[in-house]
């Protein structure tokens, strides 16, 4: 009990420090006055131009190894930069606070717990895709981790040689032969496709019914609060587990590379 108090006081102190730190962030970028560095002279023109012709622009996707058709280009790029802003001003500060307040074993426990809950939609999708072995492994993992793994806080099953599979309804649709559709960048959620975006809906309902069942079984009185906590925790946990940061890939062509990698990855996930 005593140590529990100590931890929470400590956590509180850290929270205050981190919030203070986050609020101070904008003040950190120091501004230099250097008139010779304002890049005013832009009169130079290269004697040779490699500017792409109209035809080059039209055929750009098929000409490039990294090319992916992008009919929703304007919407996607708007969302991409919206997500980058959201990340910078909301998501990442929240994740930083989360990481500063909770020690890594606790975060790992939360992450494992959510992974464990997600075995349910994965199982449903394994069955829908006719992947018997993966379905059995997933059930096995869920049973082991929910019991020996203390409600999924520990991932004992992986240690026992049962690796975690991830199957979502987007993949299920892919296995059923549904075309991936146009590349889409969704608000906050990021890269997706027409098919994967539709796939989010059934997965959402499976998870929702699952959580409602858990709230009922656990006799939760204040369900709205439980729902909010669930959503917030899942959101922060998911972002904390994705190392990607917008505009940090050392190339101005990041959007193009992310689009390529996402599309290829999902192709492989469906074949897997």
């Amino acid at each position: 009990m005593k140590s529990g108090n100590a931890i929470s006081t400590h956590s509180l102190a850290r929270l205050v420090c981190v919030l203070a730190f986050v609020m101070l962030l904008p003040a950190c970028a120091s501004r230099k006055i250097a008139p010779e560095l304002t890049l005013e002279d832009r009169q130079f023109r290269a004697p040779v131009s490699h500017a792409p012709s109209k035809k080059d622009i039209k055929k750009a996707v098929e000409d490039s190894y990294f090319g992916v058709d992008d009919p929703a280009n304007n919407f996607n790029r708007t969302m991409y930069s919206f997500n980058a802003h959201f990340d910078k001003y909301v998501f990442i500060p929240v994740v930083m606070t989360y990481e500063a307040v909770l020690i890594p074993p606790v975060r790992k426990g939360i992450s494992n717990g959510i992974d464990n809950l997600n075995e349910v939609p994965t199982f449903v999708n394994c069955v829908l895709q006719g992947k018997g072995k993966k379905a059995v492994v997933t059930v096995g993992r869920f049973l082991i981790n929910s019991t020996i793994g203390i409600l999924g806080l520990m991932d004992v099953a992986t240690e026992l040689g049962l690796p975690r599979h991830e199957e979502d309804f987007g993949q299920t649709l892919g296995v059923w032969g549904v075309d991936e559709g146009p590349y889409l960048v969704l608000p906050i959620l990021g890269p997706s496709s027409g098919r994967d975006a539709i796939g989010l809906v059934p997965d959402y309902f499976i998870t929702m019914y699952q959580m409602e069942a858990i709230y009922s079984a656990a006799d939760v009185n204040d369900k709205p609060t439980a729902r909010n906590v669930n959503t917030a925790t899942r959101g922060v946990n998911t972002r904390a587990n994705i190392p990607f940061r917008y505009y940090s890939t050392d190339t101005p062509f990041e959007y193009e590379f992310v689009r390529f990698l996402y599309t290829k990855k999902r192709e492989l996930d469906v074949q897997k």
Partner: protein
Amino acid sequence: MAKRFAALLLFFSAMTFAPICLAGDGVDPYPFTDPYKATVFGTPPGMIYKPQKLGFVANKSLSIKNRHIPEIFWYAEDLAYSMVLQKKSAPLLFLVAGTGAKYDSGKMRYLAQVFFSQGYHVVCLSSPTHFNFIVSASKYAAAGYVPHDVEDLYRVMLWCKEVVEKRQPVENISVAGYSLGGLHAAFLAHLDSQRGDFNFRKALLINPAVDLYESALRFDTWMSPKNTGGEKPVEIIDRFFRQFAEFYKTRELEKLDSEVLYQLSDYVKATDSEYRVLIATTFRITAASMIFTSDVCLNAGYVVPADKALTKYDPLLPYMNVLAQVRFEDYFNEYLYPYLQYLGVAGSKEEVIRRCSLKSIGGYLKSAGKIVVVGNEDDPILSDGDVGFLKETFGDRATLFPHGGHCGNMQYVDFVEAMIKMIR
């Protein structure tokens, strides 16, 4: 199994970053004797030198008032850098990233912790060839001409020095860099010997490039039909991709770390000339990013028409495509050299190229005892002549390992210990 279980238990007690366990006496020799494999796959997890303590990395930035920033680079208007400071008076070390790399690239983060745990305040800077540097802090917004790039670095370092000194006392200052950053570190030491703002105690060149232009041209020849046997580079890249796809499909990968990379090194089957294409392609993408950024910042009309102001909606794939065909030699002849002439920089092409080589300051390097080198004899970015130059110029101030490729063994225990010893 027991080991795994022990690891699980340890996990709960020691997850709070305490990766101490330095590999003991029985370190295996560095496994990749093939320089290309070394360059691509790096150091296997069991052989990585683990810094004794980890410091808190503070991300910082600075911006230049009223600087012209193109709309599509809205996210790069501040020059980002980072610092890891001791909580007391300490020597300061500047780290300069390699070609096209950012202050927080994997190699930079690693090196920062290695030297922090050796008692340094560490400041990490992006390469002047990185788009963020070009957009936010480069005086002429065109990278690749070493004297200009080093002037830019020098100026930024003076600003950073002020920031550090406001927080903690600085005992003395050193500079280090890997790859192109190593070459920059040598030129920084040379510039400082004339101006005396830092009075560097040591300059550590890690796998330095000796001659920027020559190394860049070497990459370009790796893409030529002579190396590929007539195959298109993209076909070779596709083969790598397919192998990786098979690898990915047959296992559950949580993340792409050094462990996975090591498994991959065993899995991938490729010839040396194929690895060369892979390395050269990475370089080509880096160069494309650099050239595109400069062209947009200067509005020079090289790949983006001068009358076109790119917005954040414009697809950039067409520019990527044309730049995929632009060799470094083309960039130099068609863009960089004409621009330098426009700026009034004197000298023939040969002279300008020579100013980007360590050989141009060979006399200084030979006499300056503060400059030390740790590298590899089989570094594929160096010619035999370059390796000879390093040996001849630095003598026992250069530690060269027989194998390791280009920065492949940078995390390997012996290599790290050599870096620590040489900078002491």
